[in-house]
């Protein structure tokens, strides 16, 4: 089973025969005990610490189809090493492009992503609304439901993005009611996030984005041709489209759970000029929580089998592919629990 590996410590990664060898190096430059990672067990590499590596390693990773995602000191996603495409399918590529080019086809898919995001947001809010009578989320829920109902009226992508923005704003406004005792939302701030909760959301969203990107890589979809977001520029924008649908379920739920269980506290953060960031130990805990979340399984209603949350992302790619091939209309993943 291939699993993502997260590298928090500084060190050197190298190829040793057909294995990866990681040698930690401490601040004084002294090498520690090397660790070996059999290549068959490595999914993607997530690099948070400072990593030394040479081209021989990247050639090896490329050959094995392993991506490397980099995060800087402030935990911002800075980029990925993506291996050569290995699942090219001309027909799929042409169909994906056609659906982007035709405004009417594009908006149809874009609307679905917003619907998916809104439905999963509502699922999260309703859960917290039911759980504790003291928290009143009904107003936010009603407003998001109204905004969701107006999605079919959006005639172009900018208008749709406007509705999506309002949904998000209402949603983030409700965060205080859920975790307000420990943290304060105080509006959504990015680049850099200004407080703890914003730092968590940004960090979680990046993890979700990279998980979507890796999944797309293992399908015939082109990650740069997107429908809701503008394609290509700076980001693999199809991964942004997909992550809209999964962020509430994969990231926000995890944030609420970890805060409410006091696994994350205000002392786990430090404020810097570059914004607010998670301290090392807390970041490790959060990444671990995210990884466990992806591995957790649910019984899929249409397939009749247990599937992991990570696999749900792949299934979303399949549904999109079927839509693009004209087999079945794409309907976004809707959490039912």
């Amino acid at each position: 089973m291939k699993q993502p590996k997260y590298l928090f410590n500084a060190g050197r990664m190298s190829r040793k025969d057909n294995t990866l060898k990681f040698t930690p190096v401490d601040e004084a430059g002294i090498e520690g005990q090397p660790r070996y990672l059999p290549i068959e067990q490595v999914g993607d590499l997530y690099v948070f610490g400072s990593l030394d590596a040479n081209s021989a390693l990247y050639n090896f990773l490329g050959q094995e189809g392993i991506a490397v995602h980099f995060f800087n000191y402030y935990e911002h996603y800075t980029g990925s090493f993506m291996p050569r495409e290995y699942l090219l399918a001309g027909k799929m590529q042409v169909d994906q492009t056609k659906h982007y080019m035709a405004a009417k086809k594009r908006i149809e898919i874009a609307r679905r992503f917003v619907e998916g995001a809104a439905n999963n947001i509502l699922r999260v809010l309703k859960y917290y609304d039911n759980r504790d009578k003291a928290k009143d989320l009904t107003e936010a829920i009603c407003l998001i439901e109204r905004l969701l109902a107006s999605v079919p009226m959006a005639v172009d992508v900018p208008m749709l993005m406007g509705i999506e923005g309002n949904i998000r704003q209402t949603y983030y406004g409700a965060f205080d009611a859920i975790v307000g005792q420990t943290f304060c939302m105080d509006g959504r701030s990015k680049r850099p996030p200004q407080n703890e909760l914003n730092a968590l959301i940004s960090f979680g969203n990046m993890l979700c984005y990279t998980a979507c990107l890796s999944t797309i890589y293992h399908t015939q979809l082109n990650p740069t041709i997107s429908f809701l977001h503008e394609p290509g520029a700076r980001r693999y924008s199809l991964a942004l489209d997909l992550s809209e649908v999964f962020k509430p379920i994969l990231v926000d739920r995890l944030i609420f759970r970890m805060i409410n269980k006091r696994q994350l506290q205000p002392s786990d953060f430090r404020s810097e000029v570059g914004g607010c960031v998670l301290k090392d130990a807390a970041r490790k805990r959060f990444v671990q929580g995210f990884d466990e979340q992806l591995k957790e399984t649910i019984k899929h209603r249409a397939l009749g089998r247990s599937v992991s949350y990570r696999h749900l992302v792949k299934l979303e790619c399949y549904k999109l592919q079927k839509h693009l091939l004209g087999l079945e209309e794409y309907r976004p993943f809707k959490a039912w629990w």
Partner: protein
Amino acid sequence: MQTVTGSLIGMYHICKRELWLHANHIRMEHNSELVAEGKQLHEHAYPQRAERYREIILDGSKIDFYDPYDKVVHEMKKSDKMEHSHVAQVQFYLYLLRKNGVEGATGLLEYPKLRQTQTVQLTNDDVPVVEGWIRDIKRIVDREQCPGRIAKSKCRSCSYFDFCYVEEINE
């Protein structure tokens, strides 16, 4: 122009949708443990496989094990569940051989895990049948639209199962 290969003949006899998707390079085999198992079998089932077996390529189709002395095509399969499609695949290889001037070759289907083998022939009457498959495959693959799915019970172990059957269920 699509090259018709042994795998496509096999798929043609099982599922037209799989045939279309595979031929259009929309492939799922890299996700399937069953496919990986089949590959393992191919590589390790007969470590003593005689030197004289050759891998040959005829009209773009690959025959993994061909014995040019006894003129026997060997084809290895994991289980005999889809036997009719295995027979068709070997008959197609025999057809290719005949077209390339090799008369009187026979086929041998091998099921190492079941410890069984089965011989396959290509009679004069079979030739137009195989040619019909080839024409039909080209017609299906060149269609713009992907064919529909077949009855679910057959699909459980297919590497396209998740692709074909995933959908959102209304509440």
